[in-house]
């Protein structure tokens, strides 16, 4: 599944007839470049030297905890907020720089909000027509209806937004943002107001639509799983900075820092010692990666990379949580007293204080020099 996402940075051909597309076939979508963006709210730094590139047709996720600056960055790309420093280029044109600023209405970006931001005084189709003012009315309406058809909401065209469910409102917002055919679409937590079940479906359909049209997208989310599911690349942000950019696999498998590792998974952090290419830690000895210098280091081990191993190190069983297809075990290292979490299945009945032997999948270890 991930593999197909990775190859899809250019528009995939889904066999739709040309009439059903908003973008002519083969046309590349927007190319977004952000260079050294900086912004402060009073004395509070909101963005610190942020640089990013979104290739045509690429879906980029801005990932981070709330308040890390990801929504600020999105608003700056849209042009509804101005950065203190830095440049933003859309398809090679500087829309924001030291001396230039293109107001949002002339940028050609689409915005989809967490609260959808549908105009309550306009009907669904009027909402979609809002960005098509430069066209004759009948033409604009026809286009809007087509956009609504595309999200299967044409039958609600003349209803008012408040009569629609959350998922339907989200789709109207998407149709409205896409109707003027922006070069890039920006989405701010677009799925977070939907309930769990609906979210999955709407997310899949939305992303399929974006890929189908080959539109570049920047999606803000705080949910790492969501980011991994939808993104071609992820930019993880922390306190106004981008800490790592890369494909979901790169971030998951090769986190640049302990922060990145922690963000994607509840990891066990084990202090270790590297000597002569060997890492020595309470969970055993492993080959060190070639670049690692001798000295103290930190191992990050995911709970699911811990296995029951008759030849492994002994640990004391403390407690467990039943999670469905496996259990989350709380274990204690006898020497150091440090707690370790493991995701294991088929452990059978266990008693508190009972000793188990565990091993670690060595390929999945991530080491950070201290």
């Amino acid at each position, binding site marked *: 599944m991930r593999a197909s996402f990775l190859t899809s940075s250019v528009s995939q051909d889904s066999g*739709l*007839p040309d*009439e*059903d597309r*908003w*973008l002519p076939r083969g046309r590349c979508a*927007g190319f977004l470049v952000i260079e050294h963006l900086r912004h402060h709210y009073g004395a509070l730094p909101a963005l610190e030297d942020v640089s990013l590139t979104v290739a045509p047709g690429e879906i980029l996720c801005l990932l981070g905890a709330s308040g890390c600056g990801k929504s600020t960055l999105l608003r700056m790309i*849209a*042009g*509804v907020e*101005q950065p*203190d420093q830095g440049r933003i280029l*859309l*398809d090679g*044109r*500087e829309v924001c720089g030291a*001396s*230039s*600023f*293109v*107001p*949002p*209405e*002339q*940028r*050609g970006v*689409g*915005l989809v*909000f*967490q*609260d959808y*931001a549908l*105009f*309550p*005084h306009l009907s669904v189709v009027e909402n979609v027509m*809002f*960005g*098509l003012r*430069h*066209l004759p009315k009948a*033409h604009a309406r026809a*286009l809007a209806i*087509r956009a609504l*058809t*595309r*999200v*299967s909401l044409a039958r609600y065209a003349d209803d*008012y*937004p*408040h009569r629609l469910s959350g998922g339907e409102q989200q*789709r109207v*917002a998407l149709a409205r943002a896409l109707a*003027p*055919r*922006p*070069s*890039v679409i920006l989405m701010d937590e677009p799925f977070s107001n939907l309930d769990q079940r609906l979210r999955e479906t709407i997310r899949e*359909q*939305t992303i*399929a639509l974006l890929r189908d049209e080959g539109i570049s997208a920047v999606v803000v989310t705080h949910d790492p799983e969501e980011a991994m599911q939808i993104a071609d690349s992820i930019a993880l942000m922390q306190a106004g900075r981008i800490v790592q950019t890369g494909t979901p696999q790169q971030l998951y498998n090769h986190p640049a820092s302990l922060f990145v590792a922690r963000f994607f998974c509840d990891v066990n952090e084990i202090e270790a010692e590297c000597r002569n290419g060997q890492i020595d830690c309470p969970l055993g000895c492993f080959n060190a990666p070639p670049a690692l210098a001798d000295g103290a280091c930190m191992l990050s081990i995911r709970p699911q990379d811990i296995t029951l191993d008759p030849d492994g190190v002994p640990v004391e069983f403390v407690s467990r949580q039943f999670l469905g297809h496996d259990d989350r075990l709380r274990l204690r290292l006898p020497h150091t007293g440090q707690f370790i979490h493991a995701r294991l299945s088929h452990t059978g009945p266990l008693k508190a204080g009972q000793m188990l032997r565990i091993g670690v999948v060595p390929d999945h270890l991530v080491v950070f020099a201290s």
Partner: protein
Amino acid sequence: MSVDLPPSRPSDRPAQVARWGGLLPGPVVWRWRGGAVGWTVASAAIALIVMMPLLALLVLGLHGSGDLWPHLLAFVLPDAIGTTLMLLAGVGIMVTTIGTLTAWLVTAYDFFGRRWLEWALLLPLAMPTYIIAYSYLDLLHPIGPLQSGLRHLLGLSSPRDLMLPDIRSLGGCILLFGFVLYPYVYISTRTMFHMQLASLVEVAHTLGAGRLGVFFRVALPLARPAIAVGASLALMEAVNDVGASEFLGVRTITLSIYTTWINRSNLGGAAQIALLMLGVIIVLVGVERYARRHQRYAGNARQGRRLSRQPLPALAGLLAFGACAMPVLAGFVLPVAYLVVEAVARLRQFGLSPDIVSQTLHSVGVAAFATVIALVLGLVLTFTVRQNSNVLTRLLQRLAGFGYAVPGTVLALGLLAPLALLDAGLDTLSQTVLGHGSGVFVFASGGALVTAYVVRFLTMSVGGLETGFQRIPPSLDQAGRTLGANPLALLLRVHLPLISPAVLSAGLLVFVDCMKELPATLLLRPLNFETLATHVYGEAARGTYEDGSIAALAIVLFGLVPVMLIAEFGKTSQTMTHSPPQTDRTETGS
């Protein structure tokens, strides 16, 4: 959504769409980093105009004749200041007691007539202070209906046998002001009580607090900021008054400004007293702002089940009914009944005089003109903040609202010099351009009056529009902008349709307050230009109150419009708390 989509019908080709954005280079705009420069400059100009009277007062006061001060200090001011402070203290106690008590009764309890009283308690808001004063002067006159009736009941024949305290006193003034100004406290406090959590009251009960305990230990402390806001508004009205205190023989500072100016023709002295008085007002405004700081916090923090009303047993219910009905009776029903009787008598006798018609037209015309200007200026101020909310724009908006705190007399005094300058300038200009002077065009055309109204009531327009704007989530602006609307288009296509109810209600409030305004109207109107308010004042000055009854009744009827508006708003804000948040945003929709 390729999965579940029915195939769409091929119609016009998308390639025909004029493409904007990435492919066509759009015009690059050079901008000030903060954005909205033009709007900010316009806001600054408006704020400057509003502050002009104050600056003029300062200049006048500095150049004022000092020879009056020994006299003022010795004979006028100590008395006037003492009287004003006692009036304020008395009115403060009255409005707080009546307003808080009635608000708590109608929100916490259910009793006979409660629904009816809940909005009837707003009615005295329609009654200007000068009209209630004139009405009671007649009602309580020794040969007036109340005293005669009382004597008849007691079997007394001569007015000398029944010596009631005279209404023409400080005490009478406090009483009358209290009965018409308490709704300010009632409105703000009732809203606060409505928002209180049921759980707080229930917890207090389980912790052993009785009905009184809940009121004094929970409800009252929580409502304190709202009480302060309402009371300071009521006190500003009390300070503003000229008509009532003059006829009730209460010599307040406001009145001494008026007399120093008019009777002694001493502008400088009047300006100095006015500045002194502004000191008092600034304290009141400070209190109001300080209190409102808490109110915002308290208002935001509450979510959850609202207080449900407890039914009262028969006797307690009767007491509650009496307590709530009394201020309505005293502050509205009695004076209105008197006005109706007198008006009907005069209509029977003389019919509708053409004077009344022309006075109404004058009032309505000037008020409508001022309302439109106040709305447009208010829209500029609030939309500037909406686009670019920073220290400067917010300060400008606040400065522009300062006029409300300035009593009409002081305002008129402050406007005199700048408008005279403007007239002189216009005269010179028209002499050079047209060959003949324009004279005192601004004063003669009523322009001075309109300016005074706009300056004084601009804050109501700003406040109403601001509330309207706050109900629109900022994401709508961003969506509109990215969909190709420039700021002006955004205002016209998104904001105005959504805030039109707010525009309408703000406009009504401004309009009716202009109609009721007396002190500035008296001082700034063109010669021989009578409005309803000045007519009522004129009749009262001649001692023929009852001849002004038709005009007074008309003013009260106009005043009822915003009262109904507030009552209606109270109802919707109540129902809104029960509806899901989505419909709350869309209720202005279709």
